[in-house]
């Protein structure tokens, strides 16, 4: 019957309930989940009314884990098994991890990304992050009373491909349908821009617990366009704690500390830092297991002087972003401050001096990112009618390229390119009869490959033997809307094609993710089948609705026969949805996807034609 209805021209697509969608700020220090309720973004609190979830996971014997406040309370007792600031390890190897020498963890050097040995087994940062995300998913599902259709997870704008991929994997592992990875400063700009109806060029200065971003955005009605972004993914509030910690060790002339004492003193250092936001002096006292007693007072002046280089370190990227945007400080209408670390008065002062204006602090720096992400999730889930939504144009933070002769980097997609982006470049063989070509994908701004981040290595095989320089190998880069890269290479002169596509994966193969997914369900005593079924049903329902609304608008693009094929695929999927065979539903979803492929392409062409027609009428 439904199909008869939609064949009526001018009929609106069937009404559907709002899909449950959330925004998640997966922070270094705290994480939170938010959703849009009756048009207003709200953070979802836990059973005790607390919106923040400390990003701390404590592993217990037997594989159980405590997440959040419970883990936080025990961190000094059990530092080796209590993972804090895991975000700093995402997509990173042991030698990249700053302060690794100050960390109490038992690191395992794994290819691509480090791992941590705990009493519950060896854990990848992806698994630790997934444990945090899982708690937030469960909180949201309890609060919204239903299965989530999707989530937007935020990442620092300056995160590279490895760190982004790791975050997306963590989302999947936590059982989330990740609608999009959204840059944190962009999320903040959405929340700020909509709340204040801001228009013009704004800077977002985002100093979190472990990462720093600066984004320059052009805001106009209905469009958020990132012009340039820069930052430092290894700089944040944690580094200020470290400075205070080192100062205390030196002042109190402490001997080398045990892991427990180290954590105890670090916690005190953080408290002293936070105290200084509102006071001129902070006590720093701790009783260590060695019997040593630390009894110090840290004043503002000392704090500023020991952290001055950190504050300065944020200003370089700010200047760079302005230069990349081709703008001066006089062009900036406002500087939005985001992240708990921007509460420090010396940060406020330095930013104010550089931009020659008072920074904007009218948003809760802890919540604004999650609220913006929730608003974007609401749009991506299709809950906002066209016209009331907005267009978001973001960029990649670091150039992507490949290694060429002599260990040099050839940039293929430069930083600050608007995503999605794709570009191809031709390379050739340098030896007679060469049949293979190694391709090394890197990310970064430096000339030398050794100074950039290595993302993936692969080899194109089966090039027909030819004279040196005769082969034409076309390497294509594609960056999607999440800022994630895939690379393919193809040799085509001879007609015999050699081709390969890679997605850099940093030691976590798809099979690993599947295995972790299975394990995690077993631990949670969750019914994996029930979950898979619920997800497939949501997916199937979504696709049917999308097909309906597409047909309602663009049915005229199809012949009667073509329409019948799609109608049949919809009907078979509809019939399977109430059943319990999730694999059959999955197959029907795939079949419907295939059946609508041509229709989708035609609809896209039509959209462009309409856009141009609209322009011409508008400009008459």
């Amino acid at each position, binding site marked *: 019957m439904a199909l008869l209805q939609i064949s009526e021209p001018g009929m609106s697509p069937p009404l559907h309930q709002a899909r449950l969608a959330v925004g998640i700020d997966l922070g270094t220090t705290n994480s939170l989940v938010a959703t849009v309720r009756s048009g207003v973004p709200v953070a979802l609190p836990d059973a005790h009314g607390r919106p923040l979830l400390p990003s701390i996971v404590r592993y217990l014997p037997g594989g159980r884990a405590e997440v959040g406040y419970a883990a936080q309370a025990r961190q000094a007792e059990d530092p080796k098994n209590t993972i804090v600031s895991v975000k700093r390890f995402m997509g990173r190897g042991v030698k990249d991890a700053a302060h690794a020498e100050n960390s109490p963890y038992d690191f395992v050097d794994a290819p691509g990304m480090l791992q941590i040995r705990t009493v519950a087994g060896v854990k990848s940062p992806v698994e630790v992050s997934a444990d945090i995300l899982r708690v937030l998913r469960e909180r949201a599902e309890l609060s919204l009373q239903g299965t989530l259709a999707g989530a937007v997870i935020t990442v620092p704008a300056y995160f590279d491909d490895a760190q982004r991929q790791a975050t997306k994997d963590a989302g999947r592992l936590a059982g989330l349908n990740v609608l999009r990875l959204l840059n944190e400063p962009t999320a903040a700009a959405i929340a700020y821009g909509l709340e204040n109806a801001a228009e013009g060029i704004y800077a977002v200065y985002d100093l979190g617990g472990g990462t720093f971003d600066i984004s320059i955005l052009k805001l106009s009605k209905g469009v958020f366009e990132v012009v340039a972004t820069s930052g430092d993914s290894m700089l944040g509030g944690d580094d200020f704690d470290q400075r205070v910690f080192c100062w205390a060790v030196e002042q109190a002339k402490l001997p080398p500390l045990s892991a427990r004492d180290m954590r105890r003193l670090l916690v005190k250092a953080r408290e002293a830092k936070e105290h200084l936001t509102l006071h001129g002096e902070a006590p720093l006292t701790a009783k260590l297991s060695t019997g040593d007693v630390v009894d110090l007072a840290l004043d503002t002046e000392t704090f500023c002087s020991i952290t001055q280089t950190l504050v300065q370190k944020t200003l370089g990227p700010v200047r760079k972003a302005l230069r990349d945007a081709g703008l001066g400080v006089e062009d900036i209408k406002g500087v939005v401050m985001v992240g708990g670390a921007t509460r420090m008065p010396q940060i406020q002062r330095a930013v104010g001096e550089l931009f020659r204006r008072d920074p904007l602090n009218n948003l809760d720096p802890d919540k604004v990112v999650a609220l913006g992400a929730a608003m974007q999730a609401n749009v991506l*889930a299709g809950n906002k009618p066209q016209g009331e939504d907005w267009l*978001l*144009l973001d960029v990649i933070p670091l150039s992507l390229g490949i290694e060429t002769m002599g260990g040099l980097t050839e940039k293929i997609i430069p930083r600050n390119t608007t995503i*999605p982006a794709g570009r191809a470049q031709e390379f050739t063989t340098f030896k007679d009869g060469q049949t293979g070509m190694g391709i090394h994908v890197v990310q970064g701004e430096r000339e030398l490959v050794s100074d950039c981040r290595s993302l993936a290595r692969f080899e194109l095989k089966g090039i027909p033997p030819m004279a040196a320089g005769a082969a034409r190998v076309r390497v294509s880069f594609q960056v999607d809307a999440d800022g994630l890269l895939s690379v393919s290479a193809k040799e085509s002169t001879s007609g015999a094609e050699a081709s390969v596509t890679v997605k850099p994966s940093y030691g976590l193969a798809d099979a690993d993710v599947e295995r972790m997914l299975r394990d995690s369900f077993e631990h949670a005593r969750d019914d994996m089948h029930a979950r898979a079924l619920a997800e497939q049903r949501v997916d199937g329902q979504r696709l049917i609705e999308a097909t309906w609304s597409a047909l309602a608008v663009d049915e005229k693009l199809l012949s009667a026969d073509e329409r019948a094929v799609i109608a049949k695929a919809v009907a078979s999927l509809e019939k399977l949805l109430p059943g319990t065979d999730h694999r059959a539903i999955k197959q029907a979803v795939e079949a419907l996807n295939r059946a609508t492929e041509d229709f*989708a392409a035609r609809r896209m062409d039509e959209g*462009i034609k309409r856009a141009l027609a609209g322009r011409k009428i508008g400009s008459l």
Partner: protein
Amino acid sequence: MQMKSHFELFGLPRAFAVEADALERSYREIQSRVHPDRFAHAGDAERRASLQWTTRVNEAYRILKDPVQRARHLLELHGVDVAFETNTAMPAEFLTQQMELRESLEEAVEARNSGNLDTLRKDLGKAREALERQIGHAIDTKKDYAGAAGLVRKLQFLDKLDTEIDAAYETIE
């Protein structure tokens, strides 16, 4: 859908002189219809088509916004290859001028003088504007495509210097 040029994609005339506002409006209008954010809840087929189109539209926009790339594309449409890689012959006078500019750049870096870099950038901006006017005249008015190619190569040189000035600021900081 076949499009012969990036200009057609945005409904603009094939000319070096581009009305920036019209280009931006057209770009945003198209993006608001094809962007992946519009299809995040759609099926795989639509999401793929959206990714392809958005990529293409972003690339076309980047080319039309950038004077060197725009001119190169336009000349290609007229059958003239700008040949950045192979044709590096430049008038002696222009090369001398470039050498001088690079020397002042090096001096500014050695003296760690960002004021001098500011001046250099300003001068470069003026030189670029003048060249862009010449290119526009050569392509749009005189239809002298071969002559325009030489001017575009010069502009490419100036763009490189601009990148070096950026690097110099970073060195100084």
